[in-house]
């Protein structure tokens, strides 16, 4: 199978010297549901944002749909981004506009700058957005302002927004970290089933290992910016989990 996304030697060093990603390799195939786990500050979020270049990686190669994406700018960058939907921990909805408008924002990458700036969304896009909202069970809410919705509902709008991009890959950055267990379950259910039905690959950062094991077709463990595990949920043993979360760096031992 041809890979959808290929990452080689990806590194990110922040201006303050923090090494967030360290020579990371990664491959994602179409339709996979890959979950990234790791402690806070391991670089999960940096990884996702490096893939759609919301953060500029320091080094490495990224191939998305067979095309090199490092260094591209402007129009090409936006074209690349529209094929990658993103879902955020804080939902990041534009709170003062309607739910429908928020979903339509997913179409901005397809529109001319002027039309997009004026918010002139086409009839077809609007219909598609309404369908999308029906799929996530928010049909009744489409004209409500985004901040009138509960957290779980807002995240479903976030999913609909990502889907309206008609993406090949969805990057989900801790989509359930701010939600209660019941809403978390709902969100993961929607994310998983819709990705599966549409054949969209998903790269999802998660905190909760049990949920990761439940949904993932593949799990990647990251520790201090390096990949330390890459395998099926069955291969993720308790020892492995301990390693990912409590791994003691040899360097630290030496200097201590």
């Amino acid at each position, binding site marked *: 199978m041809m890979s959808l996304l290929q990452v080689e030697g990806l590194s990110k060093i922040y201006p303050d010297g923090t090494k967030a990603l360290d020579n990371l390799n990664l491959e994602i195939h179409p339709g996979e549901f890959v979950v990234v786990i790791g402690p806070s500050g391991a670089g999960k979020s940096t990884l996702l944002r490096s893939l759609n270049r919301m953060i500029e990686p320091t080094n490495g190669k990224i191939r998305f749909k067979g095309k090199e994406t490092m260094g591209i700018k402007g129009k090409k960058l936006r074209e690349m981004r529209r094929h990658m939907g993103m879902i955020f921990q804080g939902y990041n909805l534009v709170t003062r506009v309607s739910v429908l408008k928020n979903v339509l924002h997913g179409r901005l990458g397809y529109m001319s700058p002027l039309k997009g700036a004026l918010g002139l969304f086409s009839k077809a896009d609007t219909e598609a957005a309404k369908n999308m909202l029906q799929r996530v*069970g928010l*049909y*009744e809410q489409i*004209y409500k302002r985004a901040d009138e919705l509960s957290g779980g509902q807002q995240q479903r709008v976030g999913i609909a927004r990502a889907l309206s991009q008609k993406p090949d890959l969805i990057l989900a950055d801790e989509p359930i970290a701010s939600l209660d267990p019941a809403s978390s*379950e*709902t969100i993961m*259910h*929607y994310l998983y089933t819709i990705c599966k039905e549409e054949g969209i690959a998903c790269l999802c950062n998660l905190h909760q290992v049990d949920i990761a094991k*439940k*949904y993932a077709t593949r799990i990647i463990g990251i520790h201090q910016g390096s990949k330390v595990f890459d395998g099926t949920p069955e291969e993720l043993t308790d020892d492995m989990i301990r390693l990912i979360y409590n791994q003691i760096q040899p360097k630290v031992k030496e200097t201590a």
Partner: protein
Amino acid sequence: MNMHHPKPSFTVLTSNTEPKKPKKNGLFVIGLPLVGLLFVFSLYQLQFDYSRIAEGFVKLADIVQVMFPPDFSEWRHVLLAAIESLQVAILGTVLGILIAFFLSFLAASNLTPHPFIAWIIQSAASLLRAIPTVVWALIFIVSVGLGSLPGVLAITVSAAGMLIKVFAQSLEEIDKGVLEAMQATGASWIAIVMQGILPTVKTAFIAWCVLRFEGDLGESTILGAVGAGGIGYELTHAMKSYNFAGALFVGLVIFIMVFSVEFVANRYKMKLKVRSH
């Protein structure tokens, strides 16, 4: 892979009737055209002579040319006047703060001895506030004569008018429980104020005072323009005698005064922000 996903914990609404599109926010639909209409109407009513505006810009360019370089020769005089403005601002603000501090306790609805007293003070304050400082200055000039005293009085009055309101607001935000707890210990009124109320409102009070001083300094620099002493007089004098280069120097001094106070005040505000986090 585990295939037994639990059903979502809510029922999916599958009604096919589209919810009603809410009416657009009335404020934008009515408000925006209304403001536009008001704008056009106002512009029409003002009946500007547009050729005069065009000529004015040519003249303005001439004046600006004569202004450079600024004339520093009167610096001693101008600096003395600037200091006078600064002193007027300090005295006026401090007096205003003192008055407002005492009256705000009577004006705050949770501390006032009687609601009627609070109402009287609040109304008086809003009266003081609504009349612009310069108008006060004019009134005081007529009654006590030219000089810096009318300036001080004008600033005192308008500073008090504003500070009474905002001080009282801060006092009214005090948690009722805190007051109750202190009263329950049998503390005297003065003890409650010193130990319970002042520590709570201190930061807000100081922030308001700083803000007010910022505004008052700006006011005091211009009061001279109507005859209340200070640097404003130097400016009007220079402009009236067509000494544009001298006027630019005075303008620069005023700008530096006002700007440095804004700068210091901003720094102070930042410090407060950091502390409150």
